């Protein structure tokens, strides 16, 4: 298949874009990565995702697919010769979707808000995130069955949904000066995170934490109206 048959609109720092990239990598799909400029939206983005105007957008042929988890499932369903990302078992698939939705609807939004929050609100958010990690640790124990990933021997849907958020988790820990992923409390997840980040499909698309930290500082400064730091 010609390389430019598959395009991905994204930004390097986005965990949602990362999900699409990991999935394409797992399936060994060649694609053209079109980096959007942060702070502005290209014509192509506005045309292909008029509803949300957000990345990632996968463009297959001339057909756009939006929303990261929809994209991952699409990739899984189209490129069937590669390893499966979702389980073939109906019930396990429902469980995988449940956890991905939990991460997107509850866990990640709470984590994102930690840095901007203060006092009691901040503590509540931290507690929520830590509680969530305990639940995920339990889930990991159940679904990995002693293997490296939620998906077993190979990275699966939950691994992708959760692992893509690790970069921003580390940024929150560093800049928010809070320990979230704790080896004492969630040893399974700590080990899993290492395995995930070392995986071939992940390594080349996982942004460096230091770069994310700089990017995050830039964003926070912009939001507060301060001039951006000079590069």
């Amino acid at each position, binding site marked *: 298949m010609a390389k430019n048959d598959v395009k991905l609109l994204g930004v390097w720092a986005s965990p949602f874009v990362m999900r699409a990239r990991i999935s394409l990598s797992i399936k060994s799909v060649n694609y053209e990565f079109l980096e959007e400029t942060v702070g502005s939206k290209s014509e192509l983005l506005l045309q292909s995702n008029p509803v949300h105007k957000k990345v990632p957008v996968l463009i297959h042929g001339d057909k756009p697919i939006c929303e990261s988890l929809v994209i991952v499932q699409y990739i899984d369903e189209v490129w069937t010769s590669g390893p499966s990302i979702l389980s073939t078992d109906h019930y396990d*698939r429902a469980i995988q979707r449940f956890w991905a939705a939990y991460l997107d609807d509850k866990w990640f939004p709470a984590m994102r808000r930690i840095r901007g929050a203060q006092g009691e609100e901040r503590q509540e958010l931290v507690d929520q995130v830590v509680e969530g990690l305990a639940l995920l640790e339990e889930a990991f124990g159940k679904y990995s069955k002693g293997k490296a990933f939620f998906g077993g021997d190979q990275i699966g849907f939950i691994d992708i949904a959760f692992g893509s958020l690790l970069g921003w988790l580390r940024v929150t820990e560093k800049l928010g000066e809070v320990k979230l992923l704790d080896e004492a409390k969630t040893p399974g997840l700590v080990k899993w995170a290492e395995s995930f980040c070392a995986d071939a499909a992940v390594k080349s698309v996982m942004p460096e934490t230091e770069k994310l930290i700089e990017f995050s500082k830039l964003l926070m400064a912009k939001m507060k109206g301060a001039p951006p730091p000079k590069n």
Partner: protein
Amino acid sequence: MADEVVLLDFWPSMFGMRVRIALAEKGIKYEYKEEDLRNKSPLLLEMSPIHKKIPVFIHNGKPVCESLIIVQYIDDVWKDKCPLLPTDPYQRAHSRFWADFVDKKVYEVSRKVWATNGEEKKAGKKEFIEIFKILEGELGDKPYYGGETFGFVDLSLIPFYSWFYAIETLGEFNLEAECPKIVAWAKRCLQKETVAKTLPDQKKVYEFVGQMRKRFGLE
């Protein structure tokens, strides 16, 4: 082997209605258990420990939570009758995208009308109409979101029809005037027995919303 199917639900829940419609479409027999959300049953708390919410679908003792996840599970397991999602991956992605849009936007914006007063309600009404205009645009001239047949997106949206009377009355507007295609689509869906039998009466929902508003101190 007979399947044991139980649904924990709450009659005015749009999310529960989605599952009920899916079950009706597939002709699946199930036990319906009405939950009192102010006094949740031990079964609900056991089967949905994280969110503690309805609907919960229990298939041979194993729980599935989150309405759209439940519907996809039902579609997967009982795949030989009335498919709800298309078979083509792009069409499936398209359906999932729009069902996700309904999930992200419609409940919140409905709440901004029925659970508020004054300026907040005015703003909510404006947003509600905006969201439905987007949905109307996506429907276009198709009879259903699924094309010629009722599908996943139709199912995810139609339950909100039972709340339209409450929202229109409280928001003081006429949805048919603002989004005629949406109302025409809804009436078309209601011609399906599975939908007509599942959706509660709009006046009953309006009464229920009134009780909620009193409880929230809005009336």
